[in-house]
């Protein structure tokens, strides 16, 4: 029997929340096609994650926790997905448009010569024909795309574009264990080591983002003696990210973002970068601090629902995008906001 498959992405055995959104998108397709929604869970902890997927709307689950699937390795994962697709001819395969989701679905779509719509913002199904919207040219333009044939369509969904279904802890799914498609000796890659970065950020899932730019270097605090020039600027900005931006982000439950200027100057690691060559984000609230709002930065944050700009230069282009503008020194304004937010949010 046919189905709509949703790949439930995990990292170290923990599911990513975008996978529940992918199940939400999958539910739309499954109902339209009148087929069950099947979660695919590969790797460690698969049966526990499958139970969570059931709570998030999956009717069935295909799981495989073979040792070859412990780390995400494209060849192992794609071979299994492609095998399941060719054996069962699902109507669709859906996943979150994360780096692994995009890679896996693109690979398996290629293996099976199937159509792929990557990183979609919306899906509409009309009597069997599926169309989707995507953001192109750094979000400056939208494209409408259609699936015009093929047995199985592959779709990756952008974080926060689809709603997860309300979890129902009493729901259960029929779980089937499947064997991996390849053995260790058939795999050409080997993971030698992994070093987790400290303070990982999940910008794309965040409902609120507080970002800092080059303006972070204008910290009134003095750098330690002997630290001068660019080093002093970097010290001041790093101190500002840690002691001014981060406290506000913590009160608001927000993730910390940055402009490329801040990243390139070494104020903060690249994983925080928002923009054309960083992350594309669409939070409910984006607070830009000491960021001028260059077009490449806008490319990454223009779909934010509410933008707040804090900048000492009232002429900065960021104010053209903002719903609320605060002209002034971020080093005076942000601590005041943090204090006020603590009071008002009862923290």
């Amino acid at each position, binding site marked *: 029997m046919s189905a709509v498959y949703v790949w439930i992405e995990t990292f170290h055995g923990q599911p990513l929340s975008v996978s529940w959104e992918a199940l939400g998108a999958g539910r739309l397709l499954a109902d339209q096609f009148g087929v069950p929604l099947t979660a695919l869970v590969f790797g460690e902890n698969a049966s526990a994650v499958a139970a969570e997927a059931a709570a998030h709307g999956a009717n069935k689950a295909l799981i495989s926790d073979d040792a070859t699937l412990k780390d995400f390795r494209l060849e192992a994962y794609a071979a299994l997905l492609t095998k399941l697709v060719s054996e069962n001819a699902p109507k669709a395969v859906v996943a979150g448009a994360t780096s692994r989701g995009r890679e896996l679905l693109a690979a398996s779509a290629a293996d099976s010569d199937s159509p792929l719509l990557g990183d979609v913002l919306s899906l509409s199904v009309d009597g069997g024909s599926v169309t989707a919207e995507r953001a192109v040219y750094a979000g400056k333009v939208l494209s409408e795309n259609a699936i015009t044939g093929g047995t199985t369509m592959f779709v990756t969904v952008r974080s926060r574009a689809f709603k997860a279904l309300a979890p129902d802890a009493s729901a259960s799914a029929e779980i089937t264990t499947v064997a991996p498609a390849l053995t260790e000796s058939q795999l050409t890659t080997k993971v030698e080591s992994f070093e987790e970065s400290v303070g990982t950020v999940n910008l794309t899932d965040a409902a609120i983002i507080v970002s800092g730019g080059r303006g972070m270097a204008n910290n009134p605090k003095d750098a330690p003696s002997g630290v001068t020039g660019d080093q002093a600027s970097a010290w001041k900005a790093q101190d500002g990210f840690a002691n001014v931006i981060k406290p506000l982000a913590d009160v608001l439950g927000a993730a910390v973002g940055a402009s490329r200027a801040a990243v390139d100057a070494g104020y903060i690691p690249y994983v925080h970068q928002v923009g054309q060559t960083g992350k594309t984000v669409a939070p409910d609230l984006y607070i830009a601090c000491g960021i001028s709002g260059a077009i490449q930065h806008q490319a990454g944050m223009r779909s934010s629902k509410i933008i707040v700009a804090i900048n000492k230069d009232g002429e900065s282009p960021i104010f053209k995008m903002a719903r609320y503008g605060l*002209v002034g020194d971020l080093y005076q304004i942000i601590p005041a906001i943090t204090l006020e*937010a603590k009071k008002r949010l009862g923290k």
Partner: protein
Amino acid sequence: MHVIVFTRSTPDTAAKVEVNSSGNVSWGDAALVVNPWDEYALEEGILQAKAGGGKATVIAIGAELHGEALKHSLAMGLDDAARVWDAALENADSLAYATAAAAAVKKVGDVDLVIFGRESIDVGTDQHIYQTARKLGWTMLSYVSKILAVDYAAKTIKVERLLEEGKQVVTATLPAVISVMKDINEPRYPSFIGIRKASKAVIPVWSLADLGVSLPPVNAQVTKFKNLPPRDTRFELIEGTPEEQAKKLIDRLLEEKVL
């Protein structure tokens, strides 16, 4: 030994892009540039060809305007360039492009490494990379931030990959397809002599017949481009002392229900 880098032209990142009255995407008179992520791929292609004592070839799949990215690549110092184009590729999907890309790699022959940039900044979601690797049946290593070791004789490679969660070290066998991050190197600027040489280069165009490949059916298509819905242009300047500004802002954000 041979290294292949794929690239193409994209409108400059600062271009004002919009859909014109005939429904086409237009970037006015903004310049075309090499897809910015690909500069790292091109630099790495030059470095790896040198290290392996081989040649670096750059390939673009696309209409004539992508020839500009190839000229830039030659000016940077890649050895050879080719453009793949065929009427059948017009409006085709990534699957078709990847099929053509893999066939082009096979045509060059003796290739150990194919290098892509991280993604294209215009229409891309990086899918061409992975699909090309699968069409070749080669190892795929994405988000490579460092090549730690490579042995073209023993056909092994060891890389560091930059994942969302941290850094992963992977060993793999060659031939492989890799996509590279910006930390991997410092792309060089084209030299004056390089630019002169590139401007004189005649870049061959390979058709699908030249590649001896036929395309899978195109079942994913763009039906229309649209401008963004108009932005909410309401703007409120929040004034006062920092304390007053903070209070008013929190008032507003609570009213908007985003806190």
